[in-house]
C-alpha cells in the first residue's frame, strides 16, 4: 500500500470517532490504532474495512497486482467483517458471500446484468460470483439505482467485499 494512502488513512482515524482502523485489500493489511484512544466509554469502536481491489488500485508492484488467475486467500481465522468506505457510503452495499471470480454478465459477450445508473429491484440478479464452477447469482437486496460497481469483470473477489453500491429508491 502506498505511503500516501496510509497517510490518508491515518488522517481519517485522527478525525473520526474511532480508536482503530484495519484496512485489508488483496495483499496487504494495515491496522491504524489511535494513540491513547481511551477505550473507557463502553464498547470498542474498531471498524474493519475491506477495500475492494478495484477501488484502491496500485497497491503493490505489478507482479502481485495482477494475479493471472483467481487465487484463494489462505483461510482466515474469522471472516472479515466488512463495512463501508466512509467517503463513498451513502448508498446500500451488495457484498460477496464468498471468495470467487466476479462476472458482470451471464456469459462472455452477453450484456451485463445491470449497468451503473440503472434501476434495480429487490431480488434482481446483479452479477455472478463463480468458484469451482459453482455459480452464485447475486441479487440486489434493495429497490434502487446502481450507484457504482466496485469490481471489474472477471476479477477475483473476497468474502464480504463490496461489489455494488445501490442508492435505495
Amino acid at each position, binding site marked *: 500500500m502506498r505511503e500516501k494512502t496510509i497517510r490518508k488513512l491515518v488522517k481519517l482515524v485522527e478525525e473520526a470517532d474511532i480508536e482503530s482502523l484495519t484496512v485489508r485489500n488483496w495483499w496487504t493489511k494495515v491496522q491504524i490504532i489511535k494513540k491513547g484512544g481511551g477505550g473507557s466509554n463502553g464498547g470498542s469502536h474498531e471498524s474493519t474495512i475491506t477495500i475492494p481491489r478495484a477501488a484502491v488500485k496500485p497497491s503493490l508492484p505489478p507482479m502481485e497486482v495482477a494475479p*493471472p*488467475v483467481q487465487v484463494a486467500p489462505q483461510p482466515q481465522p474469522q*471472516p472479515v467483517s466488512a463495512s463501508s468506505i466512509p467517503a463513498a457510503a451513502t448508498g446500500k452495499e451488495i457484498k460477496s458471500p*464468498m471468495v470467487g471470480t466476479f462476472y458482470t454478465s451471464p456469459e*462472455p459477450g*452477453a450484456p451485463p446484468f445491470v449497468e451503473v445508473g440503472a434501476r434495480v429491484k429487490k431480488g434482481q440478479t446483479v452479477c455472478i460470483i463463480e468458484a469451482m*464452477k459453482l455459480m*452464485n*447469482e447475486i441479487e440486489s437486496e434493495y429497490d434502487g439505482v446502481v450507484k457504482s460497481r466496485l469490481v471489474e469483470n472477471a476479477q477475483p473477489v473476497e468474502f464480504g467485499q463490496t461489489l455494488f453500491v445501490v442508492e435505495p429508491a
Partner: protein
Amino acid sequence: MPDDITQTQIDILNLLKDQNENWTSPKSLGERFHLSIKKVNQSLSELLRWGYRFETSRRGEVRFQTAPDILFPHEIARGLKAQVLGKEIHGFRSVSSTNGVAHRHAIKSAPDGTIIIAGRQTAGRGRLGRSWMSPPKLGIYLSVILRPTVVPAQAPGLSLVAALSVAEAIRHYPGLSAMIKWPNDVLVNGKKAAGVLTELSAELDRINFVVIGIGINVNHEPKDFPAELADKATSLQIEQGCPVDRVRLVQEVLLHLEKRYLQFLRNGLKDQLKAIKDYSSILGRHISVRHGNKTMVGTAIDIDVDGALVVNIDKRTLRLSSGEISLTESY
C-alpha cells in the same frame, strides 16, 4: 409426455414387474386395483403406447417384458436406494435446461432432494452459458435441489462432491475408470463424459438452495458428437463398447451423491478428499490455467480441504478456486 402416465398405469406396471416370470390375469389386476377388466386393458394398451412390452399367454394372462428407454420418474423411483434424493422426481421429455426448471421449483419451495430429469435439453447450460449437447435418449440431464445447512462460502465444495459421485457411479461399469478433472468434469479415458454445473442462491450468511446440474454422455455414438468435439468428448457406450441402462445409472448417481452429500454436511470435504485426489486426472501433471484471457503454466500438486487446487507456478504456490484447466504436454 411422461407426466401423462397415470398412477393406475404405474401401479399395474409395478405389480406385473413384481410378478417376475409369473403370469397375471387382467381379472386379478382389476380385483387388486378395483378396476373393470375393460379399464385394465385400456391401461395396458396405454402402457404399450409408451413403449412397454408385455407377453400374453393363450389364456389372456400377461407378464412384463421390457421397458422403453425413457427416463420416467416412476422407473427411477422404483428400486432407488437413496433415501432423501429422489423423494420427489419431476420428469420431462425435453426442457430448455433442467437447472432452469429446478431453479423455478426451488423458489416455489420444492423439498430438499427434489430431482428434475430430462432426456433432452434444448438449451443445456455449461459454465457461463456454454451449451452442453443434449440429444434425446442418449444422455442423462438431471438437476438436484439441495438445501444444505452450510455457509455460502463452503458451497463451492459441492462441485467436487457431485463430480466425485458421478465418477463413482460410472466406475460401477466394467472398464470405465472415470477420473475427475478439477473441479467439475468427469473424464473416461481422458475424454469428457460428464459435467457438473452448480448454481447457488444465497444470502450473505445463509444458503437458500443449491441446484446441482449433472449431464452425462451415456449412449452416444461417435457420429453423435460434432467433429470439433471428437477428440474431447466421449460417451459411456463408446468407452465400454455396449449401451448403458440410463435408469440404473441415474439410480447409482443419486445413491452416491446422497452418501457424499451427507458426508459433506457432516465434515465438509474431509472424508472424501482422498477419493477426490485418487481420482484426480491432473494432480502431479503439468497444466495450464486460463482465467479470462490470461493463461499461466505450472504443476498441479494438491487439492486442499476447501476443494481449492494447489498449483506450483514459478516457484510460487497458489491456491486456485477458479480457472479453466488443461493438461499440457507432460514430458
